[in-house]
């Protein structure tokens, strides 16, 4: 897996490109992204780097979690995420991930996050189903229609679109262009919308090399 960076969605605005055209962008405030552990083939059976996203107060973590940070003499961080890499020798515990080498202006990135929860929704909102007439004597408004035939097949087909919980899913917005990287302030401007509510956790990873 490619290395990524954790951040928080700040909100949307627009900036101007060199032709003076407005570009819609989402602002991401990147976290500290400090390496907390390196996993090696000999000890763990696989190679990876474990990264802490944001520095948090001690009271936010429980005792076992705090113990792990104390042992490594690190500030408490949350959340922890692992990235599989082939060679861990270049990553040292306590050092931040190299922002400049991971993200550069103009490259394509994938942004993963949790979509905004919509609660229990019907088929109209959830699956773009149609609805019946709301008036003129109609008694069929927003409910589902038939869910299948009778004796044959005698059951409801699997995966049928029905009402249920919508949103709050892990979603990925792929192939978004990086408009600006501000390493000093830890800000990232990505063209277009990204999943999640403001303040939500997002992971920005470079898109597959085909596009970069």
């Amino acid at each position, binding site marked *: 897996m490619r290395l990524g960076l954790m951040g928080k969605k*700040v*909100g949307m*605005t*627009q*900036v*101007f490109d060199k032709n*003076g055209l*407005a570009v819609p962008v989402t*602002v991401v405030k990147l976290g500290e992204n400090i390496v907390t552990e390196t996993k090696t083939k000999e000890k763990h059976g696989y190679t990876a780097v474990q990264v802490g996203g944001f520095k948090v107060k001690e009271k936010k973590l429980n005792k076992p979690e705090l113990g792990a940070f104390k042992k490594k003499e690190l500030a408490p961080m949350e959340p922890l995420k692992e990235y599989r890499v082939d060679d861990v020798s270049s990553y040292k515990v306590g050092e931040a991930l190299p922002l400049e080498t991971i993200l550069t202006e103009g490259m394509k990135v994938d942004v993963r996050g949790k979509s905004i929860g919509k609660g229990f929704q019907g088929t109209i909102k959830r699956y773009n189903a149609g609805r019946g007439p709301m008036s003129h004597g109609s008694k069929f408004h927003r409910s589902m229609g038939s869910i299948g035939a009778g004796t044959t097949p005698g059951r409801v087909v699997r995966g049928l679109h029905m009402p249920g919980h919508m949103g709050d899913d892990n979603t990925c917005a792929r192939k978004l262009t990086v408009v600006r990287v501000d390493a000093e*302030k830890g800000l990232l401007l990505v063209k277009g919308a990204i999943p999640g509510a403001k303040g939500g956790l997002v992971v920005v990873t470079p898109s597959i090399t085909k596009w970069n």
Partner: protein
Amino acid sequence: MNTIIKEIEAPLLKSNLPKFDVGDTVKVFVKIVEGGKERTQGYEGVIIKHSGHGVGETITVRRVFQGIGIERVFLVHSPRVEKITVQRRGQVRRAKLYYLRERTGKATRIKEKVVSRKEKEALAQAKAAPAKAADKAPAAEAQAQ
């Protein structure tokens, strides 16, 4: 608004914009690219809508040209909008002047706003300043049509 977003927007905002509101007659000087060359075109009309804030602030300017109503939306802080000058201040009682769409001729007149002498002088000065650019604009406009 979020302080981080404000920080990002701050350098993009124009500081030399005149005070304008719905009902005012304004002249917007827009940069357009024509045949690989860039030049400025003037567009005069009445502001019928003023919306948004920050970088996303826009005005909708309506004018009747050859009997056909034209409405253009301008991103106020866009670098392509070179300059905006207020030609006439209007006194209106609505925030959105959509009613102008259904009216023609004399009915579209808007009462002039009574402003202080100081403001009046400033207005006249601003109007006189882009005179050169304005001379060029109508001819250019005819070309574009």
